[in-house]
Protein backbone atom coordinates (compact mmCIF):
# COMPACT_ATOMS: atom_id res chain seq x y z
CA UNK A 1 0.00 0.00 0.00
CA UNK A 2 1.35 3.42 -0.87
CA UNK A 3 2.13 6.04 1.70
CA UNK A 4 -0.82 8.13 0.55
CA UNK A 5 -3.03 5.05 0.76
CA UNK A 6 -1.88 4.34 4.30
CA UNK A 7 -2.55 7.93 5.29
CA UNK A 8 -5.96 7.71 3.64
CA UNK A 9 -6.91 4.62 5.66
CA UNK A 10 -5.79 6.25 8.91
CA UNK A 11 -7.71 9.40 8.02
CA UNK A 12 -10.79 7.29 7.25
CA UNK A 13 -10.43 5.50 10.60
CA UNK A 14 -10.29 8.79 12.49
CA UNK A 15 -12.86 10.71 10.44
CA UNK A 16 -15.46 8.17 9.30
CA UNK A 17 -15.54 4.91 11.21
CA UNK A 18 -18.78 3.79 9.53
CA UNK A 19 -16.95 4.10 6.20
CA UNK A 20 -14.01 2.20 7.70
CA UNK A 21 -16.31 -0.64 8.74
CA UNK A 22 -17.73 -0.82 5.22
CA UNK A 23 -14.20 -0.96 3.84
CA UNK A 24 -13.33 -3.83 6.21
CA UNK A 25 -16.36 -5.80 4.99
CA UNK A 26 -15.81 -5.14 1.30
CA UNK A 27 -12.20 -4.07 0.81
CA UNK A 28 -8.78 -5.71 0.76
CA UNK A 29 -8.44 -7.10 4.27
CA UNK A 30 -4.72 -7.85 3.91
CA UNK A 31 -3.92 -4.23 3.08
CA UNK A 32 -6.04 -2.97 5.98
CA UNK A 33 -4.33 -5.41 8.35
CA UNK A 34 -0.88 -4.29 7.21
CA UNK A 35 -1.77 -0.62 7.74
CA UNK A 36 -3.33 -1.23 11.16
CA UNK A 37 -0.38 -3.28 12.43
CA UNK A 38 1.99 -0.49 11.37
CA UNK A 39 -0.29 2.15 12.93
CA UNK A 40 -0.46 0.27 16.26
CA UNK A 41 3.30 -0.33 16.26
CA UNK A 42 4.21 3.32 15.60
CA UNK A 43 1.49 4.94 17.76
CA UNK A 44 2.11 2.71 20.77
CA UNK A 45 5.88 3.12 20.44
CA UNK A 46 5.35 6.89 20.70
CA UNK A 47 3.07 6.45 23.73
CA UNK A 48 5.56 4.02 25.30
CA UNK A 49 8.45 6.42 24.74
CA UNK A 50 6.42 9.22 26.36
CA UNK A 51 5.64 7.03 29.38
CA UNK A 52 9.26 5.88 29.57
CA UNK A 53 10.43 9.50 29.59
CA UNK A 54 9.02 9.81 33.12
CA UNK A 55 12.04 7.77 34.25
CA UNK A 56 14.23 8.51 31.21
CA UNK A 57 17.31 6.74 29.83
CA UNK A 58 16.81 3.13 28.72
CA UNK A 59 13.21 3.02 29.99
CA UNK A 60 12.19 5.17 26.97
CA UNK A 61 13.31 2.40 24.60
CA UNK A 62 12.00 -0.42 26.81
CA UNK A 63 8.47 0.97 27.03
CA UNK A 64 8.49 1.91 23.32
CA UNK A 65 9.21 -1.74 22.47
CA UNK A 66 6.84 -3.34 24.98
CA UNK A 67 3.62 -1.36 24.53
CA UNK A 68 3.16 -2.24 20.81
CA UNK A 69 3.75 -5.90 21.73
CA UNK A 70 0.97 -5.71 24.34
CA UNK A 71 -1.60 -4.41 21.87
CA UNK A 72 -0.61 -6.63 18.94
CA UNK A 73 -0.45 -9.70 21.18
CA UNK A 74 -3.86 -8.93 22.66
CA UNK A 75 -5.35 -8.60 19.18
CA UNK A 76 -3.77 -11.87 18.01
CA UNK A 77 -5.09 -13.77 21.04
CA UNK A 78 -8.54 -12.15 21.15
CA UNK A 79 -9.67 -12.05 17.51
CA UNK A 80 -9.99 -15.86 17.13
CA UNK A 81 -12.25 -15.85 20.19
CA UNK A 82 -14.59 -13.34 18.50
CA UNK A 83 -14.77 -15.49 15.38
CA UNK A 84 -15.25 -18.77 17.26
CA UNK A 85 -17.83 -17.54 19.78
CA UNK A 86 -19.89 -15.90 17.04
CA UNK A 87 -19.63 -18.93 14.77
CA UNK A 88 -20.80 -21.20 17.58
CA UNK A 89 -24.08 -19.26 17.69
CA UNK A 90 -24.59 -19.10 13.94
CA UNK A 91 -22.92 -15.76 13.17
CA UNK A 92 -21.39 -15.69 9.70
CA UNK A 93 -17.83 -14.72 10.52
CA UNK A 94 -14.41 -14.87 8.90
CA UNK A 95 -11.20 -14.82 10.92
CA UNK A 96 -9.45 -12.39 8.55
CA UNK A 97 -12.34 -9.89 8.65
CA UNK A 98 -12.67 -10.18 12.44
CA UNK A 99 -8.91 -9.74 12.86
CA UNK A 100 -9.04 -6.62 10.64
CA UNK A 101 -11.94 -5.29 12.73
CA UNK A 102 -10.15 -5.89 16.04
CA UNK A 103 -6.88 -4.45 14.67
CA UNK A 104 -8.68 -1.37 13.33
CA UNK A 105 -10.44 -0.79 16.65
CA UNK A 106 -7.15 -1.15 18.54
CA UNK A 107 -5.43 1.14 16.04
CA UNK A 108 -8.13 3.74 16.73
CA UNK A 109 -7.48 3.38 20.46
CA UNK A 110 -3.72 3.61 19.87
CA UNK A 111 -4.18 6.82 17.88
CA UNK A 112 -6.30 8.30 20.69
CA UNK A 113 -3.52 7.43 23.15
CA UNK A 114 -1.01 8.97 20.78
CA UNK A 115 -3.08 12.16 20.89
CA UNK A 116 -2.70 12.08 24.69
CA UNK A 117 1.11 12.05 24.67
CA UNK A 118 1.34 15.84 25.21
CA UNK A 119 -0.51 15.30 28.50
CA UNK A 120 1.95 12.57 29.50
CA UNK A 121 4.87 14.84 28.64
CA UNK A 122 3.21 17.69 30.56
CA UNK A 123 3.03 15.40 33.61
CA UNK A 124 6.76 14.80 33.27
CA UNK A 125 7.47 18.50 32.73
CA UNK A 126 5.66 19.59 35.91
CA UNK A 127 7.02 16.63 37.91
CA UNK A 128 3.57 15.21 38.60
CA UNK A 129 3.84 12.77 41.54
CA UNK A 130 4.23 9.10 40.54
CA UNK A 131 0.84 7.87 41.78
CA UNK A 132 -1.04 10.74 40.13
CA UNK A 133 0.81 9.95 36.92
CA UNK A 134 -0.30 6.33 37.26
CA UNK A 135 -3.94 7.38 37.73
CA UNK A 136 -3.77 9.75 34.75
CA UNK A 137 -2.29 6.97 32.58
CA UNK A 138 -4.97 4.48 33.65
CA UNK A 139 -7.70 7.01 32.79
CA UNK A 140 -6.20 7.61 29.33
CA UNK A 141 -5.91 3.89 28.61
CA UNK A 142 -9.45 3.28 29.90
CA UNK A 143 -10.85 5.94 27.53
CA UNK A 144 -8.92 4.48 24.58
CA UNK A 145 -9.98 0.92 25.46
CA UNK A 146 -13.63 1.94 25.76
CA UNK A 147 -13.46 3.68 22.37
CA UNK A 148 -11.95 0.56 20.78
CA UNK A 149 -14.58 -1.77 22.22
CA UNK A 150 -17.34 0.67 21.23
CA UNK A 151 -16.14 0.52 17.62
CA UNK A 152 -16.22 -3.29 17.66
CA UNK A 153 -19.66 -3.27 19.30
CA UNK A 154 -20.97 -0.89 16.64
CA UNK A 155 -19.57 -3.08 13.86
CA UNK A 156 -21.19 -6.22 15.27
CA UNK A 157 -24.52 -4.49 15.88
CA UNK A 158 -24.66 -3.50 12.19
CA UNK A 159 -24.57 -7.20 11.24
CA UNK A 160 -27.78 -7.94 13.18
CA UNK A 161 -26.96 -11.63 12.79
CA UNK A 162 -27.49 -14.36 15.37
CA UNK A 163 -25.08 -14.45 18.29
CA UNK A 164 -23.46 -11.03 17.86
CA UNK A 165 -24.24 -9.94 21.43
CA UNK A 166 -22.79 -13.11 22.96
CA UNK A 167 -19.75 -12.83 20.69
CA UNK A 168 -19.24 -9.21 21.82
CA UNK A 169 -19.54 -10.09 25.52
CA UNK A 170 -17.14 -13.00 25.04
CA UNK A 171 -14.66 -10.80 23.15
CA UNK A 172 -14.79 -8.10 25.85
CA UNK A 173 -14.12 -10.71 28.55
CA UNK A 174 -11.22 -12.32 26.68
CA UNK A 175 -9.89 -8.89 25.67
CA UNK A 176 -9.83 -7.58 29.25
CA UNK A 177 -8.33 -10.78 30.71
CA UNK A 178 -5.68 -11.29 28.01
CA UNK A 179 -4.83 -7.59 27.62
CA UNK A 180 -4.58 -7.13 31.39
CA UNK A 181 -2.40 -10.20 31.85
CA UNK A 182 -0.13 -9.41 28.87
CA UNK A 183 0.34 -5.84 30.07
CA UNK A 184 1.01 -7.15 33.59
CA UNK A 185 3.58 -9.67 32.31
CA UNK A 186 5.55 -7.05 30.37
CA UNK A 187 5.52 -4.31 33.04
CA UNK A 188 7.02 -1.86 34.03
CA UNK A 189 6.19 0.99 31.66
CA UNK A 190 6.00 3.92 34.05
CA UNK A 191 8.91 3.93 36.50
CA UNK A 192 9.75 6.34 39.33
CA UNK A 193 12.45 8.84 38.26
CA UNK A 194 14.59 7.96 41.29
CA UNK A 195 14.62 4.20 40.54
CA UNK A 196 18.30 3.19 40.20
CA UNK A 197 17.80 0.13 37.95
CA UNK A 198 15.17 -0.56 35.35
CA UNK A 199 14.54 -4.17 34.24
CA UNK A 200 13.17 -4.82 30.74
CA UNK A 201 10.51 -7.01 32.35
CA UNK A 202 10.04 -7.93 35.99
CA UNK A 203 10.50 -11.48 37.19
CA UNK A 204 7.39 -13.67 37.01
CA UNK A 205 5.63 -13.11 40.32
CA UNK A 206 2.25 -14.52 39.34
CA UNK A 207 -0.65 -13.36 37.25
CA UNK A 208 -2.68 -10.17 37.49
CA UNK A 209 -5.39 -12.34 39.10
CA UNK A 210 -2.88 -13.54 41.71
CA UNK A 211 -1.90 -9.93 42.46
CA UNK A 212 -5.52 -8.80 42.78
CA UNK A 213 -6.45 -11.69 45.09
CA UNK A 214 -3.28 -11.03 47.12
CA UNK A 215 -4.16 -7.34 47.46
CA UNK A 216 -7.73 -8.18 48.52
CA UNK A 217 -6.36 -10.64 51.09
CA UNK A 218 -3.97 -8.01 52.46
CA UNK A 219 -6.82 -5.49 52.61
CA UNK A 220 -8.67 -7.92 54.90
CA UNK A 221 -5.61 -8.13 57.15
CA UNK A 222 -4.53 -11.59 55.98
CA UNK A 223 -0.82 -11.64 55.18
CA UNK A 224 1.17 -14.56 53.81
CA UNK A 225 4.47 -12.96 54.88
CA UNK A 226 5.60 -12.10 58.42
CA UNK A 227 6.58 -8.59 57.31
CA UNK A 228 7.01 -6.46 54.22
CA UNK A 229 10.42 -6.82 52.55
CA UNK A 230 12.88 -4.10 53.62
CA UNK A 231 15.80 -2.55 51.81
CA UNK A 232 19.27 -3.14 53.23
CA UNK A 233 19.98 -0.77 56.10
CA UNK A 234 16.29 0.05 56.79
CA UNK A 235 15.01 -0.41 60.35
CA UNK A 236 12.10 -2.90 60.64
Amino acid at each position, binding site marked *: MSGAGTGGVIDLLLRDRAGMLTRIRTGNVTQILRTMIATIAVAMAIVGAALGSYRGDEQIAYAAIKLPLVLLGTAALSAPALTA*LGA*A*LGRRSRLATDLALVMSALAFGALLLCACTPLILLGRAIDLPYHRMIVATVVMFAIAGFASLRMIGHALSLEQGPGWRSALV*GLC*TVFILVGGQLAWSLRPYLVRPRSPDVPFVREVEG*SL*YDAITGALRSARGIYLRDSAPLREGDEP
Partner: protein
Amino acid sequence: MFQIPVAPPLPLAAPRALSLALAAAGPVAIGGILAAHTGVIAPLAAAPAIVFGVVAATSPALYIAITATGDGPPLAAVARALGSALGAFGIALAGLVLPAAFLSLSSVTAVTTIMVCSCALGGAAVLAMKRLSDELATRTLSAGVVTFVWAIATLGIAGRLWWNLASEAVS
Protein backbone atom coordinates in the same frame (compact mmCIF):
# COMPACT_ATOMS: atom_id res chain seq x y z
CA MET B 1 -52.26 -35.98 12.27
CA PHE B 2 -50.97 -32.82 13.95
CA GLN B 3 -47.42 -32.02 12.88
CA ILE B 4 -45.18 -29.92 15.11
CA PRO B 5 -43.31 -27.42 12.92
CA VAL B 6 -39.53 -27.88 13.07
CA ALA B 7 -37.33 -24.78 13.00
CA PRO B 8 -34.83 -24.65 10.14
CA PRO B 9 -31.30 -25.37 11.40
CA LEU B 10 -29.02 -22.39 11.96
CA PRO B 11 -25.98 -22.20 9.65
CA LEU B 12 -22.98 -24.21 10.79
CA ALA B 13 -19.62 -22.44 10.76
CA ALA B 14 -17.83 -25.72 10.06
CA PRO B 15 -18.86 -29.12 8.70
CA ARG B 16 -20.67 -31.26 11.29
CA ALA B 17 -17.82 -33.80 11.51
CA LEU B 18 -15.20 -31.08 12.00
CA SER B 19 -17.19 -29.27 14.68
CA LEU B 20 -17.77 -32.56 16.55
CA ALA B 21 -14.04 -33.31 16.28
CA LEU B 22 -13.41 -29.88 17.79
CA ALA B 23 -15.84 -30.77 20.60
CA ALA B 24 -13.53 -33.67 21.44
CA ALA B 25 -10.24 -31.86 20.79
CA GLY B 26 -11.19 -28.72 22.77
CA PRO B 27 -11.59 -30.49 26.14
CA VAL B 28 -8.40 -32.47 25.41
CA ALA B 29 -6.57 -29.16 24.94
CA ILE B 30 -8.06 -27.67 28.11
CA GLY B 31 -7.19 -30.88 29.97
CA GLY B 32 -3.68 -30.53 28.52
CA ILE B 33 -3.35 -27.01 29.95
CA LEU B 34 -4.31 -28.33 33.39
CA ALA B 35 -1.99 -31.32 32.95
CA ALA B 36 0.92 -29.07 31.96
CA HIS B 37 0.49 -27.05 35.15
CA THR B 38 -0.04 -29.95 37.55
CA GLY B 39 2.01 -32.73 35.97
CA VAL B 40 -0.99 -35.09 36.14
CA ILE B 41 -2.05 -36.46 32.75
CA ALA B 42 -5.51 -37.69 33.79
CA PRO B 43 -7.33 -34.49 32.67
CA LEU B 44 -6.25 -35.13 29.05
CA ALA B 45 -8.62 -38.08 28.80
CA ALA B 46 -11.04 -37.22 31.59
CA ALA B 47 -12.11 -33.80 30.27
CA PRO B 48 -13.57 -35.07 26.93
CA ALA B 49 -14.98 -38.09 28.77
CA ILE B 50 -16.91 -35.76 31.08
CA VAL B 51 -18.29 -33.73 28.15
CA PHE B 52 -19.48 -36.67 26.04
CA GLY B 53 -20.40 -38.86 29.01
CA VAL B 54 -22.64 -36.29 30.66
CA VAL B 55 -24.34 -35.35 27.37
CA ALA B 56 -24.92 -39.03 26.55
CA ALA B 57 -26.32 -39.69 30.00
CA THR B 58 -28.69 -36.71 30.14
CA SER B 59 -29.84 -36.19 26.54
CA PRO B 60 -32.53 -38.96 26.60
CA ALA B 61 -34.08 -37.15 29.55
CA LEU B 62 -34.29 -33.95 27.49
CA TYR B 63 -36.11 -35.72 24.64
CA ILE B 64 -38.55 -37.46 26.98
CA ALA B 65 -39.30 -34.33 28.99
CA ILE B 66 -39.88 -31.89 26.12
CA THR B 67 -41.88 -34.46 24.18
CA ALA B 68 -44.06 -34.97 27.27
CA THR B 69 -44.87 -31.24 27.26
CA GLY B 70 -46.40 -31.67 23.78
CA ASP B 71 -44.08 -29.10 22.22
CA GLY B 72 -41.10 -31.33 21.49
CA PRO B 73 -39.67 -31.65 17.98
CA PRO B 74 -39.22 -35.16 16.52
CA LEU B 75 -36.40 -37.40 17.76
CA ALA B 76 -34.28 -36.71 14.67
CA ALA B 77 -34.60 -32.95 15.17
CA VAL B 78 -33.64 -33.23 18.86
CA ALA B 79 -30.62 -35.38 17.91
CA ARG B 80 -29.65 -32.82 15.25
CA ALA B 81 -30.01 -29.99 17.77
CA LEU B 82 -27.81 -31.82 20.28
CA GLY B 83 -25.22 -32.41 17.55
CA SER B 84 -25.27 -28.72 16.60
CA ALA B 85 -24.92 -27.71 20.25
CA LEU B 86 -21.95 -30.06 20.72
CA GLY B 87 -20.42 -28.62 17.53
CA ALA B 88 -20.98 -25.08 18.82
CA PHE B 89 -19.27 -26.11 22.06
CA GLY B 90 -16.24 -27.33 20.07
CA ILE B 91 -16.04 -24.21 17.88
CA ALA B 92 -16.39 -21.85 20.85
CA LEU B 93 -13.78 -23.76 22.82
CA ALA B 94 -11.40 -23.65 19.84
CA GLY B 95 -11.43 -19.85 20.11
CA LEU B 96 -10.88 -19.88 23.87
CA VAL B 97 -8.02 -22.41 24.06
CA LEU B 98 -5.33 -19.93 22.98
CA PRO B 99 -6.24 -17.18 25.52
CA ALA B 100 -6.67 -19.84 28.23
CA ALA B 101 -3.24 -21.33 27.49
CA PHE B 102 -1.64 -17.89 27.63
CA LEU B 103 -3.36 -16.93 30.89
CA SER B 104 -2.43 -20.25 32.48
CA LEU B 105 1.19 -20.35 31.34
CA SER B 106 1.81 -16.77 32.50
CA SER B 107 0.58 -17.49 36.03
CA VAL B 108 2.35 -19.31 38.84
CA THR B 109 -0.54 -20.61 40.94
CA ALA B 110 -2.61 -23.67 40.13
CA VAL B 111 -5.76 -21.85 41.27
CA THR B 112 -5.45 -19.44 38.35
CA THR B 113 -5.09 -22.33 35.91
CA ILE B 114 -8.18 -24.04 37.32
CA MET B 115 -10.17 -20.78 37.15
CA VAL B 116 -9.09 -20.06 33.57
CA CYS B 117 -9.79 -23.61 32.34
CA SER B 118 -13.14 -23.70 34.16
CA CYS B 119 -14.16 -20.35 32.66
CA ALA B 120 -13.23 -21.52 29.14
CA LEU B 121 -15.17 -24.78 29.47
CA GLY B 122 -18.08 -23.07 31.26
CA GLY B 123 -18.31 -20.24 28.74
CA ALA B 124 -18.31 -22.64 25.78
CA ALA B 125 -20.89 -24.82 27.52
CA VAL B 126 -23.23 -21.88 28.15
CA LEU B 127 -22.99 -20.86 24.47
CA ALA B 128 -23.71 -24.47 23.48
CA MET B 129 -26.84 -24.45 25.65
CA LYS B 130 -27.99 -21.21 23.99
CA ARG B 131 -27.40 -22.81 20.58
CA LEU B 132 -29.39 -25.87 21.68
CA SER B 133 -32.26 -23.66 22.81
CA ASP B 134 -32.23 -21.81 19.46
CA GLU B 135 -32.16 -25.09 17.52
CA LEU B 136 -35.02 -26.67 19.49
CA ALA B 137 -37.07 -23.47 19.05
CA THR B 138 -39.73 -24.56 21.54
CA ARG B 139 -42.76 -22.27 21.75
CA THR B 140 -44.47 -23.13 25.02
CA LEU B 141 -43.42 -21.98 28.48
CA SER B 142 -43.37 -25.54 29.85
CA ALA B 143 -40.99 -26.75 27.12
CA GLY B 144 -38.77 -23.71 27.71
CA VAL B 145 -38.68 -24.40 31.45
CA VAL B 146 -37.88 -28.08 30.80
CA THR B 147 -34.98 -27.13 28.50
CA PHE B 148 -33.68 -24.61 31.04
CA VAL B 149 -33.85 -27.08 33.95
CA TRP B 150 -32.16 -29.76 31.82
CA ALA B 151 -29.38 -27.30 30.93
CA ILE B 152 -28.83 -26.38 34.59
CA ALA B 153 -28.74 -30.05 35.61
CA THR B 154 -26.34 -31.01 32.81
CA LEU B 155 -24.03 -28.07 33.50
CA GLY B 156 -24.19 -28.82 37.23
CA ILE B 157 -23.23 -32.49 36.80
CA ALA B 158 -20.43 -31.72 34.35
CA GLY B 159 -19.21 -28.81 36.49
CA ARG B 160 -19.07 -30.96 39.61
CA LEU B 161 -17.15 -33.74 37.82
CA TRP B 162 -14.73 -31.21 36.34
CA TRP B 163 -14.20 -29.56 39.73
CA ASN B 164 -13.44 -32.94 41.35
CA LEU B 165 -11.01 -33.75 38.53
CA ALA B 166 -9.21 -30.39 38.79
CA SER B 167 -9.02 -30.49 42.59
CA GLU B 168 -7.60 -34.01 42.49
CA ALA B 169 -5.02 -33.00 39.86
CA VAL B 170 -3.86 -30.07 41.98
CA SER B 171 -3.69 -31.93 45.32
